[in-house]
């Protein structure tokens, strides 16, 4: 390589190195910072520890854990909080980077607005209502707490409610919900929503067997098999059957 070429190369590389120190956000930063951190654009080490990367200790030096979701870093109350209830105080550990990324280029690869409930302390984990509002439909109005019997913490819908525990939806009962739950009221059901079961034929069949209490079908029948009588009514001798041996 000629001396002039070496000089030109060295000069260019020195200029690039200077630019990297003067404008680190443009030269080496992985995309724009979030608007709230715009003033830190040229101060990488405000958040990053050399070799260790962005550190939670540096986050909490400005964002006090007890104040997150309640007060801004300047101590003013947050007028429009992003969540209805502050929850950062109830996390199992303060690993800010597990959820937050401030650079646009890094953010692109992170699941956004997807809160991992596993990060919550166990006691808080069971208090869904402290963060979530219960739906206002007729079914949920009657329920308070114990959401996990029908829903899991990954997704609200579809519910993880196991219908088989109450009635098995086999091929003869592969019907839409409203066939049995009129008006989508899941607190009630009827077996007379289809042509197969009518009050008259059900009454006749049960009276023939000496059963008089047959209003609550699933009390005895948990599937389409009329001989598979598993429910409380399995002791239907007390629940309605007139024992012919008597």
């Amino acid at each position, binding site marked *: 390589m000629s001396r002039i070429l070496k000089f030109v190369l060295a000069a260019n*590389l020195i200029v690039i190195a200077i630019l*990297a120190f003067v404008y680190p956000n443009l*030269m*080496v930063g992985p995309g724009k910072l979030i608007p709230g951190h715009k003033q830190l654009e040229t101060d990488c080490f405000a958040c990053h520890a050399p070799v260790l*990367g962005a550190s939670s200790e540096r986050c909490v030096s400005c964002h006090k854990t007890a104040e997150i979701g309640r007060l801004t870093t300047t101590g003013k109350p947050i007028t429009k909080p992003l969540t209805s209830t502050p929850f950062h105080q109830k996390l199992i550990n303060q690993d800010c980077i597990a959820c937050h990324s401030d*650079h646009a280029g890094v953010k692109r690869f992170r699941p956004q607005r997807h809160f991992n409930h596993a990060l919550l302390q166990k006691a808080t984990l069971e208090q869904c209502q402290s963060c979530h509002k219960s739906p206002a439909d007729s079914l949920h109005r009657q329920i308070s707490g114990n959401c996990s019997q029908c829903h899991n913490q990954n997704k609200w819908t579809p519910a993880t409610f196991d219908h088989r525990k109450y009635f098995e939806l086999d091929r003869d009962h592969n019907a839409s919900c409203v066939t049995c739950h009129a008006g989508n009221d899941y607190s009630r059901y009827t077996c007379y929503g289809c042509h197969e079961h009518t009050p008259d034929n059900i009454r006749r069949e049960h009276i023939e067997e000496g059963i008089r209490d047959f209003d609550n079908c699933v009390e005895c029948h948990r599937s389409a098999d009329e001989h598979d009588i598993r429910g409380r009514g399995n002791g239907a001798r007390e629940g309605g059957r007139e024992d012919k041996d008597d």
Partner: protein
Amino acid sequence: MTTSLWRQHILPFTFLVGLLAVVTLAGDYLLHRLNLVWVGRYLGIPGTLLIIASLIYSLRKRKYIKTGNPKKLLTLHEFGTWIGASLVLIHAGIHFNAILPWLATVAMGVNAVSGMVGKLLLDRSRRHVQEQREHFQLRGLSRPDVEQAMFWDAVTLDAMNRWRKVHIPIFVVFAMLALGHIISIFLFWGWV
């Protein structure tokens, strides 16, 4: 003459450059399709290591190391840099964030194209030297000695020397920019 130029130079060169672009786009597409975009972040490491490993040829050629078949090391250099470059290109993706890594990517691209030009020049030199084979054999040299002599003749032809005057500075620029990118990653990325 035109047909020969097309078949022996333009077509292989276009094929190598085109294949690099296709492999990069296909790799990037697959990573997105399989929801494995995060893998792309780390492909820069094997890509860089392959490029560094392929430099053994350059050391052998300048006699910094004395062992190793130069012909095999050149093949390693050609394949290593090509595959390394494609891994780095997939790693870069089409995400325009910082300027320094993009300058490094562009320098690497120019370096890779320059390398492919060198490969074609070397092929031409080899053909030229082929004509001298009989001359060497007439001098009573053994077959391995003839091969060795021809190899060094091919890589030291004038055209190759002139090409090297361009290729080496491009490589230096690429190496310095890549080094800047690597240092910044070591400095700011959370490795622990």
